[in-house]
């Protein structure tokens, strides 16, 4: 992902546009802006608009009916539940990993950060397969699970595991560069003043990282609720039981029930938009904190 949330929002394009050495002819500038905006409209705006247009094509009554249907409600509930388990697990992991990587030096640090990134580069389908091989009926623990009447694959625990795997890096990746940039002087000062480990974390570190942490959580949550490939492998698509919202979208779509498919999809698209709004706010706050810090020193 894009790394630290701190820098790239307040963009000082003014200094480039007024400097003869860093300025292009006006026609080049206009052409480049036009290309970027055309690409933006075609690849980003149009798909987003399509989701809402298709969802509302048959009117609000059909839209709300599609969302309040029992299968839709159970898909929404399941999605919320899976995210409510997966996100806190990765939150604790992300904070622990960032504390270890950003505040200490040790051998194998580079290897560890690569390992944290690993789920980003594993295909979601392969991620699902791993858990089928472990916990499926023919898997390593399959016979044992069957004996003890505990289902992981084609049941909720499998959905949680697959979701946890694909979202492992999100919070850690957001926190590590942020905490590295902040250094360890604040915490070391707290140690000198006699603070305990938890006191340092709650009163010194957490206030410094809260905006980055919030963004990491929101991003992790968006991916957790929207994950498709990995959960598709482990879900078994049992309607009303193991269908998360994205899987339910697929079923409706394959049944040619486009209005309902896009109605459920529009909820996920709203979640994505909310995520982007939070990101913008977080970056704005990060900028403010940065300039406040600069003024203070």
């Amino acid at each position, binding site marked *: 992902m894009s790394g630290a949330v701190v820098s790239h929002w307040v963009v000082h394009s003014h200094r480039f*546009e007024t400097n003869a050495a860093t300025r292009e002819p006006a026609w080049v500038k206009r052409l480049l802006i036009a290309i970027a905006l055309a690409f933006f409209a075609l690849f*980003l705006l149009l798909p987003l608009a399509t989701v809402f247009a298709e969802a509302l094509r048959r009117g609000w009554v059909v839209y709300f009916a599609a969302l309040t249907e029992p299968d839709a409600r159970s898909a929404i509930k399941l999605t919320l539940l899976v995210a409510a388990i997966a996100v806190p697990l990765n939150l604790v*992991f992300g904070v622990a990993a960032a504390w270890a990587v950003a505040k*200490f030096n040790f051998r194998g640090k580079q290897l560890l950060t690569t390992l944290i990134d690993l789920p980003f580069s594993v295909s979601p389908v392969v991620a699902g397969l791993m858990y089928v091989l472990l916990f499926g009926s023919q898997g390593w623990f399959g016979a044992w699970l069957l004996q003890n009447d505990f289902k992981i694959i084609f049941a909720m625990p499998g959905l949680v595991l697959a979701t946890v795997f694909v979202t*492992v890096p999100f919070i850690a990746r957001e926190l590590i560069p942020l905490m590295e940039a902040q250094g360890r002087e604040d915490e070391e000062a707290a140690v000198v003043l006699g603070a305990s480990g938890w006191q340092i974390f709650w009163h010194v570190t957490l206030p410094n990282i809260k905006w980055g942490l919030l963004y990491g959580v929101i991003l992790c949550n968006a991916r957790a609720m929207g994950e498709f490939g990995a959960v598709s492998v482990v879900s078994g698509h049992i309607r009303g039981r193991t269908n998360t919202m994205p899987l339910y979208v697929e079923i409706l779509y394959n049944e040619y029930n486009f209005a309902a498919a896009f109605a459920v999809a529009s909820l996920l698209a709203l979640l994505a938009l909310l995520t982007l709004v939070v990101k*913008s706010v977080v970056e704005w706050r990060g900028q403010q904190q940065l300039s406040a810090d600069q003024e203070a020193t």
Partner: protein
Amino acid sequence: MRPGKRHRVLPGFPLALGYTLFYLALIVLIPLSAVFLKSATLNWEQFWSTVSAPRVVASYRVTFGTALLAAAINGVFGLIFAWVLVRYSFPGKRVVDALVDLPFALPTAVAGIALTAIYAGNGWLGQWLEPLGVKVAFTPLGILIALTFIGLPFVVRTVQPVLEDLDTELEEAAVSLGADRWQTFRHIVLPALLPALLTGFALAFARAVGEYGSVIFIAGNVPMVSEITPLLIISKLEQFDYAGATAIAVVMLVVSFVLLFLINGLQIWTNRSRER
């Protein structure tokens, strides 16, 4: 390297590192090793005949070919995007900047059905393109569109911060030595952006290779023509051919690891050239 074990001032290192390693082992390493151990139950010939079957090889060509092309498109347009966002001001710039991350945040299945609706024969764009003989949905071209959508933010977000930090003095010096704007870009700016650009390209490519959700709706999934490798893993699983699915998964994992290794190297290169 600073403090050794005895000089650590801050508390919590053993706990934090221990928990990190425990969690990664449980969630990532043990499940991943299950794939490799399962594939070891196949002998070499079985493995090879699975991963080199014509239908599987055709899926590699589709997957890697479209992923490469999509990453290249993103390289070009991502650079233009980053350039425009850093160097120019125009109305609506903040909205554009915020929405660049949409492919990160939008669930892949949602992107998949939306793109299909746009490019299908009766869709917003499909109805104009098909009479011209351009079929997008249910062809490899559709896969390309989906992968381009997925990959855009990777290039923009890796190039953008580097471009922002770029010292304008170098460009000023080039101009004062008589270089025109294109020469300055070609010989001064572009080399400085190259590590970040390649990193973004590799990230977009790695993501595109494994992508599933946004592709399967628009691809049509015609064997030998528009079937991607992750889909083959799923169809093998649905036929309870666990060994076959695992063999193909091993190929994909090896590619992922090579890419990850490459990306790591590129990122180190990017950071070094930024510090200079």
